[in-house]
């Protein structure tokens, strides 16, 4: 349903993505794991057309998009179908929570104000921020900001939402509320690709896990198989290290606690 095909990317001499392909089915929640510098963010940014790939193709709804070169019309059409959530939220500082969610609808889609605001309000309610619609980002906590950012990414009701480490910039006690929202989207059947370091989240929410290293997908499996029965030595080592690390790390513990209790 959503396919990345043969994505290549170099930064100077540094080969960051080596012919990466990824096939995502409707309703899949794909967690991308991997050590720092393995190219996870770059892959996601290429898929969001924020970084130009050297080569690669995106396939969605029988439409093909060249990842290196795209017309602005095709790009607008593509972006309506794909939402992006950043590690650093990137909310618009001059807009309220509601204004953040509706800006794309109003400006890019030329949607009338009332209609856009109705959609915005509904989305903010869904991420639990009905009482914060008129707040500016600087008056919101990190967790609240990221939830607004998620609502914003959902404004066009995209077919796929891409998340780049959505909780990495948050204080440990705030990751739970964001992961809960993402889990809720997963339960609703939203197709998502989530780059994350939260092992518990990947284990509990993802349907599939992709493990990247040095710009390549090393292993790919259902979440259950990936954790219970990893194939590659490198993957076993990574899971072992991350989970032992997590057991002494409060951040992951709290995230793990927060998840099953999601509304």
């Amino acid at each position, binding site marked *: 349903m959503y396919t990345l095909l043969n994505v290549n990317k170099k930064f100077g001499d540094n080969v960051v993505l080596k012919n990466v392909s990824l096939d995502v089915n409707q309703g899949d929640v794909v967690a991308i794991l991997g050590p720092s510098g393995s190219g996870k963010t770059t892959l996601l940014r290429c898929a969001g057309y924020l970084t130009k790939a050297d080569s690669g193709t995106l396939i969605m709804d029988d439409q093909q998009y060249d990842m290196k070169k795209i017309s602005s019309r095709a790009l607008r059409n593509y972006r309506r179908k794909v939402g992006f959530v950043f590690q650093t939220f990137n909310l*618009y500082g001059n*807009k309220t929570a509601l204004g953040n969610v509706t800006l794309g609808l109003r400006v890019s889609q030329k949607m009338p104000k009332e209609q856009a605001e109705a959609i915005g309000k509904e989305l903010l309610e869904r991420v639990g921020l009905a009482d914060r619609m008129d707040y500016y980002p*600087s008056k919101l906590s990190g967790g609240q900001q990221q939830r607004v950012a998620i609502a914003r990414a959902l404004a066009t009701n995209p077919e796929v939402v891409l998340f780049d480490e959505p909780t990495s910039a948050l204080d440990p006690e705030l990751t739970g509320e964001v992961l809960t929202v993402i889990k809720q989207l997963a339960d609703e059947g939203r197709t998502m690709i989530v780059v994350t370091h939260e092992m518990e989240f990947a284990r509990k929410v993802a349907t599939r896990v992709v493990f990247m290293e040095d710009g390549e997908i090393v292993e790919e499996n259902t979440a259950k198989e990936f954790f219970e029965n990893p194939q590659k030595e490198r993957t076993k080592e990574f899971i072992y290290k991350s989970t032992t690390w997590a057991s002494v790390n409060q951040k992951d513990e709290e995230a793990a606690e927060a998840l099953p209790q999601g509304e």
Partner: protein
Amino acid sequence: MSERILTELAESFGKLFMVGLKVSIPLTLAAFSTGLMIAFLVALVQITKIPVLKQLMRIYVWIIRGTPMIVQLFVVYFGLPNIGIRFSSFVSAWIVMSLSVGAYCSETVRAAIQSVPIGQLEACYCDGLSFWQAMIHVIVPQALRTAFPPLSNSIIGLVKDTSLAYNVALVEILATAQRIASRTYDYFWLYLEAGLIYLIFCSVLTVVQRKTEAWLERRR
């Protein structure tokens, strides 16, 4: 101070004030808005690093900052007619002052635009906005907020700079005071009064600046 001088000053106050409202302030506003647009374009060229244009902008800023405004005024008003280009006093002053604002404020505007995190521009793209739509709706409003204090300082400086246009035969506040004084010989009092008029205009602007800053502060 005699009664005669008092009556004279009372009369001339109205005249000077009206000239300020009708000439100096419009000139200030016209030059400032044009200059700000120039500053914005120069800043964008610097940020996006457009090759040749970037060098040209550098040269422009270098020339404007390195020469006195009064020399620039003379070149435009008295010099250009030699090669067949004629501008009125007002238009000459407008051109020169706009170019000056453009050069002096471009750095301020550039820094202010770059102070808005690049991630917000990327978020705009993901929202389907074009570069210009992102500029208009997200980046520039925040950049102007950052640049507001230094920019309002330059607008206040600009009010005072309009007096330089006296030298290219613009009938502004100073020229009007000069004309009245040349009849009555009360140069001392009339020039003091001209100064007072500038002081009033600048004070009003300072108050507006403070109010606006407080208002902007509440909206973030």
